[in-house]
């Protein structure tokens, strides 16, 4: 018997005519790991929320959801709450209490378990997740990745049989995301926990999951073993763009044979192509007039604290897109706030268009000169609808290289990650900046929206803007940057054109670069590799 049986479920939100889910049928067996993917608005979140009774949205639902053969409505309240664990996207807002130990105990306190049982389960979970060191720390001192692991642990202490994860790594950096996914996988392997997961970033998830369910406009397009599903997506670029690089390369080469999923399998695909030793020419960065200059910049938040920026030297030239990459806590975001004049450096000089920041008097730095779009785009919004928001910033909708008209009457908080980013970008562009600083613009943005964002940034560059992007997303940087800089311990350690830059890095680089290493020189994107493989085939 299946753990979960979804039979002909349709769902319509109140006041909507088009159903969010239509005749959805599938079942999940105990111990299975199921990934759910689909474009934004395809009904992924609605589906997951329907599976967790306490979080089910209001609306008209038909069809049946059976848990262990029992209709969802007939499962006792307590069992429904504790048997299904649910972790959402935003790590910060899901945490209820102020200390790690209390958060772990929260669910168990709700179950009214006696002290010794709580003590045992909390200890067990803290040890399993390696949380001993931060057990009695305040939650606010944790990093985003640690917070999300805490959310997972706080659910796992209740010993659920089904774990539902709604884009759990969307707000995390790639290393924290990989750690989170690995932990989920470990739970699945060690305890036979059933997992249903949706993700923007499928690169890591797909090779691990047993089955892949593709949703399109509320309908199940496919639900099968991932290789089979992906192999069938040939004519669906909007879904394919979220898939692992190996699978995309496989499709670009004509979808012949078994679909590879991981970098290792992708290497075999490339190996079979002829034309080994080919390569693309190296790129050089052409120097121009500097737009942003940081010279020997030092910065620390506390008088007695450590240096966050240590002798930072970075020059960004006018009319280029410069991507700054680097690990967590290396000081990238701090660099942007210093460059934007929000934090004053303790030493060194920052010049914007040849003029020192402190010489920009009376907030003139932020008028038609420089602007910063922060990591948490919600901090940009002040009004109740997108329309008010744009009117408030005096943003001309017609001037933008993208269309916001369909979103006009929505609340900015209700938009998807990609849409929020675009609205925030519109607001930021209204100050007519010449230098645009972006902090993690791809956080919480799905693959299709990311592709769109790259187009928009290139269009802005063509209009003469200089763009500095701080990001963890190497694939994104490879596609849009003119120059990349590697940040490490408070300063830039290397810069270069993306092709050269990524082919010299061996870990901090794109999946394609890792797949083609040793066979092709300087192949960084799927298009590069596909072109080289095709050339080989023509020989």
């Amino acid at each position, binding site marked *: 018997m299946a753990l979960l049986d979804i039979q002909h479920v349709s769902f319509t939100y109140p006041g909507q005519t088009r159903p969010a889910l239509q005749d959805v049928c599938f079942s999940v067996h105990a111990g299975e790991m199921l990934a759910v993917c689909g474009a934004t608005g395809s009904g992924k979140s609605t589906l997951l929320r329907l599976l*967790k009774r*306490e*979080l089910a949205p209001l609306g008209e639902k038909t069809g049946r959801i059976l848990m262990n053969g029992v209709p969802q409505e007939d499962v006792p309240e*307590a069992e429904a*709450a*504790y048997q299904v*664990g649910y972790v*959402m996207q*935003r790590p*910060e*807002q*899901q*945490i*209820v*209490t*102020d*200390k790690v*130990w*209390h958060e772990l*105990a*929260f*669910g*168990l*306190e*709700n*179950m*009214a378990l006696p*002290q010794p049982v*709580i*003590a045992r389960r909390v200890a067990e979970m803290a040890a399993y997740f390696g949380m001993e060191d931060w057990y*009695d720390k*305040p*939650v*606010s001192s944790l990093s985003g990745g640690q917070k999300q692991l805490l*959310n997972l642990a*706080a*659910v796992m202490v*209740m010993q659920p049989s089904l774990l539902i994860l709604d884009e759990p790594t969307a707000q995390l950096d790639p290393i924290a995301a990989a750690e989170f996914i690995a932990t989920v996988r470990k739970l699945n392997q060690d305890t036979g926990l059933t997992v249903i997961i949706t993700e923007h970033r499928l690169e890591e998830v797909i090779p691990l999951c047993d089955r892949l369910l593709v949703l399109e406009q509320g309908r199940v397009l496919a639900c099968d073993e991932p290789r089979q599903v992906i192999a069938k997506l040939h004519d669906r670029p909007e879904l394919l763009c979220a898939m692992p690089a190996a699978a995309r390369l496989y499709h670009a080469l004509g979808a012949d044979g078994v679909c590879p999923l991981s970098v290792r399998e992708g290497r075999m695909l490339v190996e079979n192509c002829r034309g080994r030793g080919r390569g693309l020419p190296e790129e050089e960065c052409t120097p121009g007039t500097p737009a942003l200059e940081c010279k020997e910049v030092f910065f620390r938040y506390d008088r007695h604290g450590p240096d966050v920026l240590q002798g930072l030297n970075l020059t960004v030239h006018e009319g280029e897109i410069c991507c700054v990459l680097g690990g967590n806590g290396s000081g990238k975001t701090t660099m942007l*706030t210093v460059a*934007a004049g*929000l934090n004053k450096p303790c030493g060194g000089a920052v010049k914007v268009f040849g003029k020192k920041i402190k010489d920009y*008097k*009376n*907030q003139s730095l*932020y008028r038609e000169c*420089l*602007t*910063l779009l*922060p990591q*948490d785009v919600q*901090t*940009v*919004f*002040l009004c109740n609808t997108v329309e008010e928001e744009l009117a408030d*910033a005096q943003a001309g909708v017609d001037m933008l290289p993208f269309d916001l008209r369909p979103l006009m009457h929505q609340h900015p*908080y209700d938009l998807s990650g990609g849409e929020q980013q675009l609205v925030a970008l519109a*607001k*930021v562009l209204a*100050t007519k900046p010449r230098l645009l*600083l972006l902090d993690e613009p791809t956080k919480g943005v799905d693959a299709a929206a990311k592709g769109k964002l790259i187009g928009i940034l290139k269009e802005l560059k063509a209009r003469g803007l200089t763009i500095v992007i701080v990001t963890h997303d190497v694939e994104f940087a490879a596609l849009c940057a003119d120059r990349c800089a590697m940040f490490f311990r408070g300063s830039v350690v290397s810069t270069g054109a993306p092709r050269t830059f990524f082919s010299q890095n061996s870990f901090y680089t794109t999946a394609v670069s890792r797949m083609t290493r040793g066979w092709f020189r300087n192949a960084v994107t799927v298009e590069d590799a596909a072109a080289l493989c095709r050339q080989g085939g023509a020989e």
Partner: protein
Amino acid sequence: MRGFADYNPIAAAVYFLAVTGIAMFCMDPVILALSLAGALVTFALLCGQGGRAHWYTLGLFLVMALINPLVSHNGVTVLFVMNHNPVTLEALLYGVAAAAMVVAVLYWFRCFSCIMTSDKLLYIFGGLSPRLALILSMTLRYVPLFGQQAKKVKQAQTALGLYKEDNLIDSFRGGMRVFSVMVTWALENGIITADSMTARGYGLGKRSRFRLFRWRAGDVLLLTGSLLLAGLALMGVHARAFTWYPAIAAAPMDALAIAGYGAYGVLTLLPAIIHAKEAIKWHCLISSM
């Protein structure tokens, strides 16, 4: 090694209540001197140096000690007359005693706040009701979170040019808008938190409470010891019956008074005694290894 900070919070709280309570309500010079000395020793032990704050306290002490004889003209021993008002020895000494009391209590409170982390307060108040404990814990989380987010919004809006000029009116107007959006943010995020709580079965019934601390023999000893010593000290103070006005007078030092003072002295030094005991134990352990 179990320092004073590791004792059960309820025992520690009772200890602080006893030691400060007696200092506050018994205007007895010996008690006050013992209390001040004990508070300083305990402070150095539990909280470390303290830095510049000591100078402020000294200033406070001097001001309070000098103000009393200027405003209170009670007492029989006139030292001199100022502006047709007598300045008396009794008022001066009383001022010094009152200042010592305030400073001692201040130091005891500082020790208390060094020792009582939010976890311990939660343990004490959570005993009244698990729901109260949760509210307390959530407040401790959300108040700083709100502040952090407000700071982030302010930075974001600065970079967006919300503040048109460098003047007060403009920054006030900007601040108001940031505050109003923070309310929306808090409500919006409250929904996610509420979801996360119901998803984990909050509100299904009676809650239990996970306690980080438990009672050990040492805690019971500290609790009963504090209460006994405090009782003895009170009896001693009562037997001494010290009065400041109109003339300084007290019953003769009998055995009970001496015992009372002794008991209070031990009480103020309890954390130091515990500390010394642990240090000796540790030393013996090391040398026997």
